[in-house]
């Protein structure tokens, strides 16, 4: 099996199972308190790590390029309470324009 299909199948099956965890397995049962506190931090931690790696991540090196301008413009839009589609378009535009100019 190719690397691509291996990844697609494993991730697909795992994600289906993860999304079904609560509805299929647990129903109304609650997580033990310490586990719930750890799980509650997964989303902010993983999203934060993703922002970092997608902004300055390269092939085994830190890369400072037009993406920084895009994220910066996106952050300003977020602070101004722009809706999600506007944040995305503004960040893309800022990245594309910076890449053209620099």
């Amino acid at each position, binding site marked *: 099996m190719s690397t691509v299909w291996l990844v697609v199948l494993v991730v697909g099956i795992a994600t289906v199972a993860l999304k079904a*965890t609560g509805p299929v397995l647990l129903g109304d049962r609650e997580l033990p308190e310490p586990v719930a506190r750890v799980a509650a931090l997964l989303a902010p931690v993983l999203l934060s790590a993703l922002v970092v790696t997608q902004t300055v991540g390269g092939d085994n090196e830190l890369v400072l390029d037009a993406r920084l301008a895009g994220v910066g413009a996106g952050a300003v839009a977020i602070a101004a309470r722009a809706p999600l589609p506007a944040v995305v378009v503004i960040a893309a535009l800022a990245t594309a324009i910076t890449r053209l100019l620099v």
Partner: protein
Amino acid sequence: MSSAASISELRYRDGVRAAIAVAATVWFFGASFGLVARAAGMGVLAPLVLSATTFAGSAQFALTSILGAGGGAAAAIVAAVLLNTRYAPISISVASLFRGPRLRRLVESQLIVDESWALASRGGGRFDRRLLLGAGLLLYVAWLSGTAVGVLAGDALGNPKDLGLDGAFPALFLALLVPQLRAPRAVLAALVGGAIALVLIPFTPPGTPIVAASLACLLGLRRSDA
């Protein structure tokens, strides 16, 4: 028609309606994903199967970028699965909305995605089933049809870098991160996780920084002082 019936009939539609603007973005990102996946050498069918089964943008983009950078299957799988691990607690938070046979609950639970979950939140940890499923269905259709257009008409859409899409992704993740930062502990954990990822980028294979950053979740083991 009784008013109760009309309310319950309307509310799946309310979910669809609430998600229309977000669905446009999701379609756009689905097309971007198809484009990027094609460029990363994933072919036509694999990205579609991935969108149909995984239906989670951040994990799909992460594994695509790792594969495209030659990061290997293990790093791609671990990063994507770890990114989607949040769906265990997310699905647990809405577990009581799902009824009937297990197979039906399994199928319906696949409509859980960050955006449908957020749109269905009624505050105080309560969620609305019809908003969740109505929004989720529209977003699923948008994601899959966007992916199809991206992989098939990818060349017509141009180079994603020329469109600045590589800068749009981290901005989208930032926009999804900000609403998560209400509690001081979440802010601290996000900072620690981001710092771990930043420090590890030069020294580890692609995907590893995100995996290692998840250790910051252990801050949750401390008892809440709030």
